[in-house]
């Protein structure tokens, strides 16, 4: 009797495992299906190239939100990449001490931090100081979310570079900083770029910190010290407006955003074909 029930339990565990996967993929497929089904009708030339029309009327598009998201991502990357790269280089090259371990630990803690708390931080030190919601504040908030991801992936990619490559450079008599930048970093390039792209994908959908820092806008980009529109904010606002047209605009914006985010994610996966898998598990 023992063997039969043992084999049954084994089969049962296998079946339950499959069931869990099925349960988890239903929402994913439903989200993709609904976003495409409802969003595709909103997509038009006008939708992609004009700012929102008069409130409550069925006109206008999300061009300002697309522009705002691109500007925010570019600025946030410009801030986060230098800091993240150098922190990652530090941790990989010199970080084998108490300070390095502390930084590494706090970096991991920050990478899992609620993004709305980061929004409050930036509101308190940038928005209040500048006297209003602004593109700059939003970019800084996003860069704080990107920073730990870039730091971590840079460190891990550099650690994968075999020390023989660095030693070969040092044997030729070049300086250590030169060896690190020209040889180690350039060998680790693929992993570093993967990390940066995943960080961008991660923050491009961030909404909560933007609510507290850029607020949103119905117009095109109007200066670094002014509010700006962003795709996630458009989606959130459209969800709260009781017009069928706004809802359709929201689905359309969701389609554009999800194409961007999943495009980045899937693109990175295909391009690296599993080489930097360890970088993804925690992003």
């Amino acid at each position: 009797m023992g063997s039969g029930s043992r084999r049954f339990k084994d089969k049962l565990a296998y079946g339950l495992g499959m069931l869990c996967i099925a349960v988890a993929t239903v929402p994913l497929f439903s989200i993709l299906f609904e976003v495409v089904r409802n969003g595709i009708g909103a997509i038009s030339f006008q939708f992609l190239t004009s700012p929102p029309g008069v409130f409550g009327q069925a006109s206008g598009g999300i061009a300002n939100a697309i522009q705002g998201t691109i500007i925010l991502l570019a600025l946030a990357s410009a801030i986060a990449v230098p800091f993240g790269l150098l922190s990652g280089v530090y941790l990989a090259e010199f970080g084998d001490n108490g300070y390095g371990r502390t930084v590494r630990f706090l970096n991991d803690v920050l990478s899992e931090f609620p993004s709305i708390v980061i929004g409050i931080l930036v509101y308190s030190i940038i928005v209040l100081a500048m006297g209003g919601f602004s593109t700059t504040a939003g970019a800084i908030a996003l860069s704080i979310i990107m920073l730990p991801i870039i730091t971590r992936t840079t460190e891990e990619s550099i650690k994968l570079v075999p020390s023989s490559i660095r030693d070969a450079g040092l044997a030729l008599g070049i300086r250590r900083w030169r060896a690190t930048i020209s040889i180690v970093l350039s060998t680790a390039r693929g992993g570093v770029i993967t990390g940066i792209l995943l960080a961008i994908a991660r923050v491009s959908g961030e909404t909560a910190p933007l609510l507290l820092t850029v607020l949103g806008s119905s117009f095109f980009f109007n200066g670094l010290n002014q509010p700006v529109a962003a795709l996630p904010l458009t989606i959130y606002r459209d969800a709260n407006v009781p017009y069928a047209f706004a809802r359709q605009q929201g689905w359309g914006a969701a389609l554009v955003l999800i194409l961007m985010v999943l495009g980045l994610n899937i693109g990175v996966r295909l391009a690296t074909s599993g080489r930097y898998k360890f970088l993804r598990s925690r992003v």
Partner: protein
Amino acid sequence: MTKTVERTRNSSVPARSFIRWIDRLKQFSADDFFEVSSTAFAAIVVVILALMSVVLTRGAYPVFDKFGIGFVFGSDWSAVAGREVYGALPYILGTSVTSAIAMIVGVPISLGIAIFLAEMAPGSIRNPMSQLIELLAAVPSVIYGFWGLFVFRFWIVDWIETPLSRYFGTIPVFQGTPFGLDILTAGLILAIMIIPTVSSISKEAMMAVPSSQREAAYSIGATRWEVVRTGVLNYSRSGIFGATILGLGRAVGETMAVTMVIGNATGMAAFPRSFLQSGQTLSSLIANEFGEAAPGSLLLSSLIGLGLILFAFALIINVSAQLMVWKVLRVKGRVE
């Protein structure tokens, strides 16, 4: 006597160290500059977290000054001028209840996925399935919210809440109209959102178990499930527990999806009594009311106070989770 000796020593030590310092400075090379500057850049993380604690404490000071600990344990919420009163308890409970639902539903599913993918799935489907589950983490939370508001909410109403309220409606925790914008929907959407985190980190922890553990179990005739139960789960316990806590951290901090489906009650109405009632979490109230808070107002201070409570939760949760998954994941990343 001793005084003179001390004075000479005192005067000579700084002088000597100054000379040494000048010597060091002369030898200061590009390499030293590289090390110093990257050390300085690495400090940014420490600076951010330190700033965060200072800024939140300072911002929340006025509300704690006015209501004391009553802010944490109070239940009323009113921004009417002259009768302002703020209490965080309903939102602390709202966060706790929604996160608890997320854990109770999400963790078993995640562990099922992790066990299946790490130990049982044939090699050909393991990788595509893992990638698919990881894509769940890539979907922005505002899209979860939008989908939750217009699609998922009606699944919950039709399949869970209507039967619940029909057959168990007399039980207090199931009282209320099945409307879909409530604590149950928020908890379930959080459950979906923590699945990729918990399952992928538990999977890593299980895959880090040395194969000798499995071989030992197989060699005495164990089935696959027995191998998992006796060899793998036991060995990867701390990693799995850490993954669970990380999932809890995600659930506690998640804002947009919850804000869009929880119904946004405030004050006593937000006090969680039933699954089928609209509620509010710490983060959703901040997202909802921040736009209305003028700089310098008590409302702003109380919202930052909610942020401070959230900060404390997140810090405790993430520090303990990192301590648990640290070993498993860091060591593995290096070996790979």
